[in-house]
Each structure stands twice: as C-alpha cells, then as structure tokens.
C-alpha cells in the first residue's frame, strides 16, 4: 500500500515537473512574441540583419562556399572576408533547422526560422538553467531558476522574436556548457566533460563572448586548487574539457590559432599546466612525507611562477602572443575606449550600465541575488564556488558594459532561485501542520532533518529563524505555537509569492514596453487614434533597392550598413562590422567636411548616394546629427589636422544647430544634408527641429551644390542624396549651381570672369 502511494507520488511529481517545464517553455516563447503580434515577423535592429543576410547566403549556397564567402558588397572597395570573420554557429544552426523542417514537410520561410529562433532557444536556456541549478541545489530550485530565466527581462532584451543575434543562441550554449561542466566536475565523468567541451565548441562557433567560458572554468579550477580542493575528478574533468574544447575551437576559421596565441586564452592554458603540476604534486604527496613535500611544493611554486610570468612577458614581447584587445582594456578602464578607440565607445551598448538598469532588468532578483550568493557561501560545495566566482566576475563586467548584463542574468536567476528555494523549503513546508492534525505526536520525517541541517550550519539570520521555528514546533506541540508558526509561514511565503507575482507582472510589462520594438519600425498613432507604424527606414531602403542601380554604392554612417545590405541590397562603404577604423573615419570625414571636399572624397570612393538619418521632423532622437560628434571624433583620430572637434561647437561651447552654430558646423555635409529644404516644411524661412528644439533658418543651411536630393521618406527620417555627375564642361559644380540659380531668378547680369589661363596637365 505504502509502496503504491509512493510510486503514485513519484509519478505525480514527474507529471507536475513535466507540466511545469512545458509551461516554462510556453512562457519563455510566448513572452517573446510581443513584437511579432504587435508588428510583424521582422528581423530587428542592426546586427541581426547581417546574420539574416548571411543565413540566406548559407541556405542558398553550400557550407564551404559560405566559409569562403568574400563579400564585395560591403566595405567598398575593400570587401570583407565574411566567411572568415564571422561566428558561423548561429547561421549554421538556423540553416540546419530550415533544412530539417523542409525534410519533414514543413517548408518554412527562412525569415520565420530566423525570427523565431531566439524564443525557441530561450526555452532551451530555461531547461539548461533548470539542470544547472539542480546540480547546485535541487529540482525545486531548478524549476524556480528555469522560471526566472524564461521571463527575466535581462535575457529577453536580447532574445525577443526577431532579435536574431549571436546572443540568442550563445546564452543557451553558455548554460549548457556550464551545466555539463558542473556535472563533470562533480563526478569526474569524461562523458560529461566531453559534452561540456562540445558545447563549448558550439559556443565558440556562435559568439565572441566564449572567452568568458574560457576564463571562468579555469578560474573555478584555480580557486578550487587554491582552496585545497583538488581531486582527481577535477583533473579528469578539466583536462578533458580543455583539450577537446581547445582543439575543437581552433576549427572555427575566425578563431584559428587564437587559443594558443591570444592573451585572453592564456589563463586556460596556464591552469591546464597547473592542473598537471598539482596532479603530479598530489601523486608525490601520496608517496613522500609531508615535511619533504612542503619543500618540494615551495620550490616548485617559485620556479613555476618565475618561469611562467617571465615566459609570458617574453612571448608577448616577441610577438608570439597577441596583445590584449581594445575591448579587453575597456573592460578594466572605462575611459580607455573613449580616449583610444572612439569607435568602441560610440556604441551605446558598450557604455557603462546605469544603476536603475539592474533593477529594470532583474526586478526583485537583484536583491535576492546577493542573498543567494551569501547562502552559497554558507554551503560552499565545489559547485557553489563556481556560482560565486561567476557572480562576482560578472557583476563587475555588467557594471562596465551594458551588454554584459546579459551574461550576468543567468547567474542572478540561479542565485536568486537558490535563495528563494531555501526560503521556500522552510516556509512553504506545511507538512507539519498536516501531521499534527492527522497524527498528533508523530514527528514528520522532514522536521528533525530541517532542524538538524539548520543547526549544523553556521548561524545566519534565516537559518536561525528556521531553527527557531523548527525547534519551537518540535519541542512544544501547543496549538498556539503551531498557529503562530502557520501565520509566520503564511506571511513569509505569501510575501514572496506576491513578489513572484510582481516579478511576472514586471517582466511582462518590461518586455512589452521596452524590449519588443523592432527599431526598424516605430509605433505611432493615426489622427483618429488607431495604431499605425512609422516605416520610414524600410520605405527609404526599399526605394534604394528598387530605384537605384544594382551596383550603386551608398555612403552612410556605419550604423545603417547592415540594414542597407539586408534591406536595400546595395553596396555600402562601412557597416556594423567596424573592422576598419580608417574606412569608417573616411565616411566620418566626408560627413564632417564642407560639401566640395566631401564630394571629391566620396567620388574618389565611387559613391553614388549618401544616406543620412534625420529626426528633426518627427522628434526621433537617434538621428545622425546626434551621432555627429562621434563621426567628428573618429575622423579626428585619423586626420587631426583637418577635423577638429572644437570647431563644431558654438562660440559658447555648446553643441547647437541654430544660428549660433559654428560655421564649420553649418558648412559640414551632415548639417546641409540633414536640413536641406527643411524650412520649406514650415513657412519657408525657418524650421523648428523637434529633436534639438532649435530653430533653423534658410541662411544657416545655405545651398547644396554638389548633391541633389534623390529621396526623402515620408517623415523625413531617411534622406538620400545623389552625388551630382561632374559638369560636362568641367566647371566647378558650385559655380554651375550659382549660375543656374541666377538664371532662374532672372538675373540678367552676365558674369564675365577672367579665365584661368594656367596650363592644364
């Protein structure tokens, strides 16, 4: 009878767990579909457009063609060795999914595969988090962590439907790798560490952030060794992971020999060596007396440190090891990028995180997180060290760069789930009540256990409470105490259930309002209040695609490079791959100089059209004039004699566009293109820029002689200008425009100019 009840309970447990996991999957996917429902199935933002374009290429070509893809439609005239400079994991995965679906009779459009890629993988991330947390604590904590992971905004921000970016798959792989690593580390299982290595390889193929794993796992091992927790399990897990993982990761063309050459990977190599030495030391320790062993230990430590550090310096100095990359420095010194590499600093997601963002992205998890870390300290098993290391390291990184919030989020979920689950273990346990009413004197089996474990541990606030509650209930069975205990438990668990409810509410709200806009399409309202969209970007890109020559070259700031490549299908000068700072500086210089210089510079680069984003009509603040200072700074870095940031500010030192703007500013191409014929929208004399709240007059703008307007979108957000063809009489385009204007104004005066009679060579 009892056995039957037990099996029935087991089955019920499995059933509930399955239902919960399926619901978590459902929640993870459905909460990411806001943008599809509200807008459409569309690729979001900037980088995903490149990934989408690359995926389309992979689907229509063979894999080897993809790896050898030289893209001559970007970075004109340099081109980009795309196949060798991307992480192919994302595209390969979606191509495999696409082919797989076709083979089972579901010929889904590749765009839909890409759009729904991130939500689907978010479900798997939740699953991996569940497994991971189960290794840290138990299944209950696992379910909580999975639930958090499924809907936490910090992760949703990079994985809504349409945000087809490397991160979409990378976080899943990150959690899978860590999950297998913990499993391997706990058991020493070679199978699990091989899986960890394979997922690590997958991660390397998918995201540049793999370096985080490359450093975190060795750090974990290193700390364990320092704590004197070395064990043969650790040895087998780490060596297996490192060897297979490193060799596998070197198969990715973009990574190549980096794992043995770049400084970012040296820690892993060092720890690999260290593990060997510690293993050897352990062996020796088992065979010699401890006194002698101490001598051996100290001697060898000194030798190793000296040889290791000097060797590292030597190899770096000799150039065998690549020096640290700029992005790495900017991790430690937040001002580094701004001074040395403005292009990195110009990206908004590389900015330091604002404090409210932590709460916005994690809500109540952010304060449960330290509590969880603290509770982990109390337990401090080997796997807990991993979570603690991860938390500390990532908290710092997330503070430095906004985008690294993403890697912090999983561990926040895990720690918070750990804390909450510990709490719920005690406060949600009403079995006692049931047992006192059912069988008055019989102690429930969980009771002494809970009390026992609580007493064993060093005192903490919560465990003290626990022990107090537990002992009080076990010592006296008076109904008053029991009643108080129930009240306490109800109060505490009720509070936290309310927090959980609030968390779900917050997550849904944040996802719906902040993270579900495709940024290609902006929501707006019709005059009658019905929802409408502002579709200027696609309008202009589509115009380019339909009405310009197929080989036309478009110059625009690099932000729009991927979108132009993806939507307009035209050749661009620079794009979001920012691999060549000088090339970007050329475009920046063209935008920042006067129109005649810009014209010659652009013509020298075969440019046909210039595209600028202008938000003055609509009040769209992310426009090119607001990014203009970065263009100036980046080009100033290359041509400090020609472009000077100071000259773009008004006399009072302000960044202004109205009459008080400096003449350099007013003469810059960006200024002219942005405001060209802008006042005509108003009374024809002055226009009001709604972004900068400044008045622009006709005189500020002057004339545009070297470019002609080719297209302006409905709300003026995208303006496309065509470079005028050179005058067929060889005249200066400025003079031609002036002459034409005078003629059209009816000025009869003929300018008789003394011809320039110098010798033409």
């Amino acid at each position: 009878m009892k056995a039957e009840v037990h099996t029935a309970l087991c089955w019920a447990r499995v059933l509930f767990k399955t239902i919960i996991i399926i619901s978590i999957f459902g929640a993870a996917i459905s909460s990411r579909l806001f943008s599809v429902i509200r807008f459409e199935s569309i690729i979001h933002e900037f980088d995903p457009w490149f990934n989408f374009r690359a995926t389309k290429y992979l689907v229509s070509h063979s894999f080897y063609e993809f790896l050898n893809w030289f893209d001559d439609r970007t970075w004109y005239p340099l081109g980009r060795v795309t196949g060798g400079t991307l992480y192919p994991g994302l595209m390969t995965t979606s191509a495999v999914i696409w082919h797989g679906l076709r083979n089972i009779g579901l010929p889904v459009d590749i765009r839909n595969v890409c759009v729904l890629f991130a939500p689907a993988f978010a479900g798997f991330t939740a699953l991996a988090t569940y497994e991971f947390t189960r290794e840290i604590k138990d299944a209950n904590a696992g379910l909580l962590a999975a639930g958090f992971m499924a809907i936490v905004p910090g992760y949703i921000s990079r994985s809504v439907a349409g945000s087809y970016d490397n991160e979409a798959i990378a976080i899943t792989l990150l959690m899978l790798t860590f999950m297998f690593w913990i499993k391997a580390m706990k058991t020493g299982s070679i199978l699990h560490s091989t899986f960890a290595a394979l997922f690590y390889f997958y991660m390397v193929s998918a995201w540049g952030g793999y370096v985080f794993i490359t450093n975190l796992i060795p750090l974990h091992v290193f700390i364990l060794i320092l704590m004197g927790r070395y064990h043969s399990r650790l040895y087998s897990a780490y060596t297996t992971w490192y060897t297979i993982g490193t060799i596998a990761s070197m198969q990715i063309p973009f990574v190549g020999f980096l794992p043995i050459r770049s400084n970012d990977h040296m820690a892993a190599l060092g720890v690999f060596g260290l593990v060997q030495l510690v293993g050897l030391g352990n062996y020796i320790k088992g065979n010699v007396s401890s006194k002698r062993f101490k001598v051996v230990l100290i001697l060898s430590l000194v030798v190793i440190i000296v040889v290791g550090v000097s060797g590292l310096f030597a190899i770096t100095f000799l150039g065998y090891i690549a020096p640290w990359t700029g992005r790495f420095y900017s991790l430690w010194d937040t001002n580094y990028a701004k001074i040395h590499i403005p292009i990195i600093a110009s990206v908004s997601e590389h900015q330091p995180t604002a404090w409210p963002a932590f709460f916005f992205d994690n809500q109540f998890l952010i304060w449960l997180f330290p509590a969880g870390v603290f509770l982990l300290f109390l337990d401090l098993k080997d796997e807990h060290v991993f979570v603690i290391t991860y938390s500390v390291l990532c908290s710092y990184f997330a503070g430095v760069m906004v985008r690294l919030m993403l890697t912090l989020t999983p561990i926040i979920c895990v720690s918070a789930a750990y804390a909450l689950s510990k709490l719920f273990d005690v406060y949600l346990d009403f079995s006692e009540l049931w047992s006192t009413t059912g069988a008055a004197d019989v102690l429930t089996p969980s009771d002494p256990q809970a009390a026992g474990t609580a007493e064993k541990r060093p005192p903490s606030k919560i465990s003290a409470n626990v022990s107090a509650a537990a002992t009080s209930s076990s010592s006296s069975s008076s109904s008053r105490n029991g009643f108080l205990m129930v009240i306490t438990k109800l109060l505490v668990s009720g509070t936290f259930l309310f927090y959980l409810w609030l968390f779900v509410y917050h997550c849904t709200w944040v996802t719906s309002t902040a993270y579900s806009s495709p940024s290609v399409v902006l929501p707006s309202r019709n005059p009658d209040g019905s929802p409408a969209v502002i579709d200027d970007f696609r309008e202009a890109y589509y115009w380019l695609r339909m009405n310009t020559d197929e080989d036309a070259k478009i110059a625009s700031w690099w932000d729009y490079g991927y979108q132009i490549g993806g939507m307009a299908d035209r050749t661009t000068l620079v794009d979001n791959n920012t691999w060549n700072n000088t090339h970007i500086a050329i475009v920046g210089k063209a935008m920042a100089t006067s129109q005649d210089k810009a014209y010659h510079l652009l013509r020298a680069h075969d440019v046909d059209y210039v595209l600028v984003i202008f938000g003055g009509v609509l009040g769209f603040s992310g426009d090119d004039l607001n990014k203009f200072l970065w263009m100036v700074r980046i080009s100033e870095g290359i041509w400090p004699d020609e472009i000077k940031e100071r000259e773009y500010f008004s006399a009072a030192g302000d960044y202004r566009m109205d009459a008080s703007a400096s003449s350099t500013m007013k003469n810059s191409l960006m200024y002219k293109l942005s405001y060209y014929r802008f006042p005509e929208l108003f009374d024809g004399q002055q226009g009001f820029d709604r972004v900068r709240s400044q008045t622009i007059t006709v005189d500020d703008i002057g004339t545009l002689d070297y470019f002609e307007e080719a297209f302006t979108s409905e709300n003026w957000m995208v303006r496309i200008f065509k470079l005028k063809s050179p005058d067929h009489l060889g005249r200066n385009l400025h003079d031609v425009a002036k002459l034409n204007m005078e003629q059209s104004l009816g000025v009869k005066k003929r300018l008789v100019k003394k011809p320039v009679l110098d010798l033409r060579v």
Partner: protein
Amino acid sequence: MIFFQLIATVILLLSPLSCGLLSSATPKANWENVEFKRIVNVLKSYPHESLELVIKNIGSTPESHYYFTLPEKVFKKASIFSASLPDHNIYVDSSPDAESTVREDSEDIRYILVQFPFEVAPDQEIRLNINFMHNAGLKPYPEHIQLGTPQNLLLNTNKLPHSLYRTLKYNLEFVGGQGLSEVPTFQDSSSDGQLDGEVLKFGPILNIEPFTQSNVSVTYVREAPSVRVINLNRNIWISHWANTIQFDEYYEVTNDAAKLKDGFSRAEFMKGQYALKPGSYLIGFEMMLPEESTDHYYTDLVGMVSTYKIISNHMFLKPRYPLFGGWFYNFTIGWTNELSQFLHTDGAEQYIASIPILNGPLDTFYDHANISIYLPEGAEILDLKSTLPISNVNGSTEHSFFDLSSGHVKVTVEINNLVDNAQKAQLFIKYKYSKYMMYRKPINIAAYIFVALMSFFFLKQINFRIDP
C-alpha cells in the same frame, strides 16, 4: 457546360511566341477595303484601337480569309485582339500569322489571319470590326517634367492603314485624350488633323495603295500614371480540407509616366499636397478582389506594408513611396475565399474550378503573367480551358506544408500582354480528387508522427550506462 456558355466569345490573345504557322509568301491581295475607320482611344494608359471596316471581295473566287496587318512593334505588344462581324453578330476566329514582311522603307509587318465562318462571294461586301489594345509607341513628352506640371503623352502610330489591301476610304480618329494635338514630324510637317471637340480627326483619305507607310504623332495631356506590371506571379491554392481558395499575387510594377526632372523633393511634395491631387505619379492601387474575401495581406521583400485598407471587395494599397515616372516597386498581396465560391462538382469526385485570370488594378497593362494553380496532393488534372486562349501550360508538382509524398499538383499558365479587361476572363480547370487521396493526407501525417514517437520511445529504452 459552363465553358460553352462562356467561350461563346472567342477572344484571341496575341503572343509573339505562338507565331510560325503560315507560308512565307505574301498573301494574295484579293480584298479591297471599301471603308476603313480607325478609332484610337487614349483614355487609358494603353491605346485601345477599334476598327470598323467594310471589305469587298475583288477576287474571282469566294474567299473566307482576310489578312489583317499590324506593325511589328504593335503586334508584339498587342493584347486581347478580337474580330467580329457586326451584321451577323458573331465573333470570328483570328489567329496571328507568323510571317513578317520586311519592306525597305518601313518597319516589319505582321499578319493576322481573320477567318470567316463562311465564304464571301466575289464582289460582295461585308462589315468587319476589329478591336485590340496595345502598349507600343507611347511615351511621355517631354520625358522629364517637374513635380506639379501636367504631363503630356506622345503616341506615335501609323497614320495610314498599312494594309495588305487597297483602301478606298480611310478615317482616323483619336479620342479620349485631353488637349489632343498633332506633332509635326520630319517627314510630314503638314498637320492635317482637325480637332473636333475632344476628337482629333484625320481624313477621309482616299485611295491608299497597299502598304503605304506614314506615321503620325499625337500628344495629349494625361494626369494619371501609366501603370505597367512587368511581371505578375499569381498563385492560387485550392484546399479541400480547409474549403478555401487562397490567392497570392506578386507584382513587379513600374510607372511609364514622365520622370522627375530634379529628383524627388519631399518638401515640395508635401507643400503642394500632391498626394491628394491627380498626377502622373501613382499614390496607390485599387485591387478588385472576389466577393467576401478574408485574411488579406500586403507585403514586399522587406516585410509587411501596413498601408492598405479593405473596403468591401476593394483592396486599396499604398506603396511604400509614391511611384513617379520610371520608378519601380514590387509587392505581394494575398487573400482567402471560400472554395465553394469557385468550385463546382459533378459528384463523382470530379471538380471544376473557375478562376478569374486577374484581380489587379484598373488601367494597367501587364507585360507578362504567370498564373499557377496548386491543386491538393494527389489530384489529377483532366482539363484546362480559358476564355483567353492560353499559350504556355506547364504541369509540375511542388512540396508545400505537410506534403509528404508527391507534393501539390501545380499548373502554370503563361500569358503575355494582358490588360485589366482580362479580369472578366476565367480559367477553368477540371480535375479529379478522390476521397482516398483526401484522407490519405492526415493518415500519412499521423503515421509519421507515430513513427517518430515510437522511435523516440525505443531509443529511450536503450541503456547507455557504463556502470552496472
């Protein structure tokens, strides 16, 4: 049965591809055009020519073949050519003749053989009406205009009948245009067209020898876009399970109107409120959908276009940008109707679907159209007929969702040179779709899922554990 009622009017669609039948010799000139009245209607974006002829057999034998001639450039772009005998109230067979005659002083000539259902005795006269549209010889004049200035179109066409036969009396009229006037040419600086109200009249011109060549250029004001669909891919999916017929149309459109002189200035366009005024630019399309259509969509290559509206069975589309002369746009629209609206069954698992050939906008010329009908997997095509003779029919299969065996049966019909009038025309497809085939599909799907689940179950049974 429905065919026979509807195919009472045989209209011939011309296609340069389908030529190549008759002998190469110039046909005998055994007719005489007693009267030849030609009315060119330029109201739409393509000229519509209606010809009223009185012809007389001047040969010695009864004759039933009349050769109508067209300049090659017109022939290549001609659409919906029809010939009728008004006295007998019948339409007659008229088939394009491949042979083009090259003459020294002129362009190539193509013949169209008009075959009367009876013979016309010598010296007898008969009235013959010919109707066709074409899209040749029309261009904006001047080619570049400024936004806001009215657009002039120039139609260059043959002034004289250009006939194989001698013409005794010839009249030419241009109607439907605003401010019609003749443009002097190099050869003929005399302008002998007379404006009579809104009609520009030439003639009567008497005694024109065969193949006399003379061109005339006429301009008129036209404040409307000249929409031309370069390519139309129209896919029609018939589903018996859902009882729906789904239409999916991909259009490649251009506007043949005058181009903008100085590029497109949004400021000027907004200031002048041109979006509300008629002009040679295209602001939107009006699609004529079948009654009671549902589930509409409007997309292009970069995603959904939100600017469309459905008002009863009209679908108003606004392209992403106004289409000025020489600009291009392409888009896809689609909708769903109930299958019963288009399907008739004779009960014995045989069906006849009558499908409209076009649902596009009015006043539009189509260079090329591909109409594909997708029948359910396992259907068998018995017959395909149309009120427009179809030139090129292709049958194939295509795998769509849950097509686990042979795939949807696909029939593609290619048609060149269509005009919006073809909306009235139908395509009839008769096919067999057995109950067995209909139920095979869900059973197939179920079997696959079953196999997948079972294999998963058995794979889970395998024990990979190393330790005992």
